[in-house]
């Protein structure tokens, strides 16, 4: 089985602000953060809506300092000094630098913008250097499973004894390049609301998200007297082998990833899972596929397992979705409160899950599953357990 993997610290920022209190207010309060964004001219697009603070969650407006700040908060909470930790960052790079380059015309020689921040690995390097961490560092770039893939890789490295500590982070701040692409793909909800699992759901909206978690072996945490916030009991990843952008209609890859994670957690049937943080984008295809996948995993119990989509409040955080939702799931376990699916209007017979509509639900939850899926049919699953 290898070493147990525990979480000892986190830092998180969304459109609600920084830290767990902001998540408790916004996500657990069922308050969608969507508003017309002033970050760029939304005139050419079908909707102006996003979950984006005017200059980013802490006012910097730039991905690099947000990632470093979250990493610093996570290390501080964990009580870890600079050291040999690996740094694994889920990010596609800072796209604003690309826009800036092409808007600058021929004036590149005099420009001061760090264009290299468009390179994902540069952000991982910046986090490692900024925090004095000397272990391996690189970026995961596989879209909406990027930061969950980073967490899974860290778990494998720790469980196998290759490393003792990893800082896993992820970040996306709403900007025009990606917004325009999602608009052209008609993926954005035109009416400004994200309604996962509802019959009238019409798409997703983007949101700001940056988070970092400290993972370490249980033995390492114990040896330095650190208190685990959560155990990562299982992890899994699988592909749909179906389409470049659409999920498998039966959620085949998502179910396979979940089964792997549950097997590793010693619970192949998922009987001990008290809550599922769904990928739940609010698109027509995703939510049906995810429902079918969950039904195949949980069988007859599927309808009674609470499943919520916190993208209904935070928006879709893309490369950061995995790590932010990991933190939200951890808070659900430690607080004993399940976050709701906001924006829910009416049932879709094809999404017949207990999706915790509107209002957070008190629950003595011990174990939870968090799921993510991405373009290309990439899927991840993580099982968290309250210590």
């Amino acid at each position, binding site marked *: 089985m290898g070493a147990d993997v525990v979480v000892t610290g986190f830092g998180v920022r969304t459109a609600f602000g920084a830290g767990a209190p902001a998540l408790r207010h916004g996500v657990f309060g069922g308050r969608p953060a969507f508003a017309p964004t002033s970050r760029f001219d939304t005139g050419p697009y079908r909707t102006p809506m996003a979950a984006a603070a005017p200059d980013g969650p802490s006012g910097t407006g730039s991905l690099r300092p947000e990632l470093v700040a979250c990493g610093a908060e996570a290390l501080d909470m964990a009580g870890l000094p600079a050291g040999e930790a690996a740094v694994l960052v889920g990010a596609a790079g800072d796209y604003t630098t690309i826009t800036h380059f092409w808007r600058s015309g021929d004036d590149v020689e005099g420009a001061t913008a760090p264009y290299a921040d468009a390179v994902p690995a540069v952000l991982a390097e910046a986090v490692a250097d900024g925090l004095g961490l000397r272990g391996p560092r690189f*970026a995961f770039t596989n879209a909406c499973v990027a930061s969950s893939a980073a967490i899974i890789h860290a778990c494998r490295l720790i469980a196998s004894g290759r490393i003792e500590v990893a800082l896993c982070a992820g970040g996306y701040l709403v900007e025009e390049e990606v917004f325009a692409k999602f608009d052209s793909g008609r993926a954005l909800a035109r009416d400004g609301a994200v309604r996962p699992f509802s019959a009238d759901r019409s798409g997703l909206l983007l949101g700001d998200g940056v988070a970092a978690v400290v993972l370490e072996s249980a033995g390492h945490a114990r040896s330095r007297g650190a208190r685990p916030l959560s155990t990562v009991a299982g992890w899994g990843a699988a592909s749909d082998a179906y389409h470049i952008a659409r999920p498998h209609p039966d959620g085949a890859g998502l179910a396979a990833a979940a089964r792997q994670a549950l097997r590793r957690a010693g619970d192949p049937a998922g009987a001990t899972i008290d809550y599922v943080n769904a990928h739940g984008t609010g698109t027509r295809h995703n939510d049906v596929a995810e429902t079918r996948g969950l039904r195949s995993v949980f069988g007859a119990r599927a309808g009674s397992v609470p499943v919520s989509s916190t993208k209904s409040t935070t928006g879709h955080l893309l490369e950061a979705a995995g790590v932010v939702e990991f933190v939200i799931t951890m808070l659900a376990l430690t607080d004993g409160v399940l976050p709701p699916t906001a924006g829910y209007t009416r049932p879709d017979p094809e999404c017949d899950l207990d999706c915790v509509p509107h209002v957070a639900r008190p629950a003595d939850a011990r174990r939870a599953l968090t799921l993510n899926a991405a373009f290309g049919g990439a899927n991840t699953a993580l099982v968290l357990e309250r210590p």
Partner: protein
Amino acid sequence: MMRLLAAAVAEPSARLAPLPGFVESPFSPLVFEACRRCLDAQLVDGARTAVVLCSLMGDTATADLASRRLVGGRVHNPLLFMQATANSVLGYLSREFGITGQQLSLSTLDDPLAETLAMADVLLDEPDLDRVLVVGVELAGGARVEAVRGELAGGAPSRSGAVQGDLAVAVLLGRDGGPAVPVPQARPGPPGSLRGLLDLARTTVGGTR
């Protein structure tokens, strides 16, 4: 110990087939071509195969084309949305070859050979996997990529600098069969250079082109 089961190198040529649903950029066709040659040379059990794509800068052709359209006030082509992430071509690849193991995309400033071999070693310890297909890909890029390369080399943003050609290198790895993969040697070079992967592909099993 890791073993090299197949290798292939893909570069732009008249014979490079376009991929349905992918436009303008050579990134995805090159990735698919290098991977296809490996998988045609060596049958794999798709359920027990993972794919690791490594690219420092990713599909810069798509990113820059989309950005120039945006700056020019033109509407995006939805196909650019579909191919905007490396996941898309991995999705196409996984469908064509029935690969249901994990797919990963990485960006590293270090030697992609060392990083991907380390990643493959971890994946091959997983009970569900016995093959890892590694593919490295970089595009020559245009003015912005040159400026980024200048910055990474320690200089200020610039429109001048050496440019490497479009290239994809794939190697299929496992624990059994094929020659042993040598321990990668530390090698100086520009960040993210595919030189190490290319040498492995060409010197160990010839690297079909």
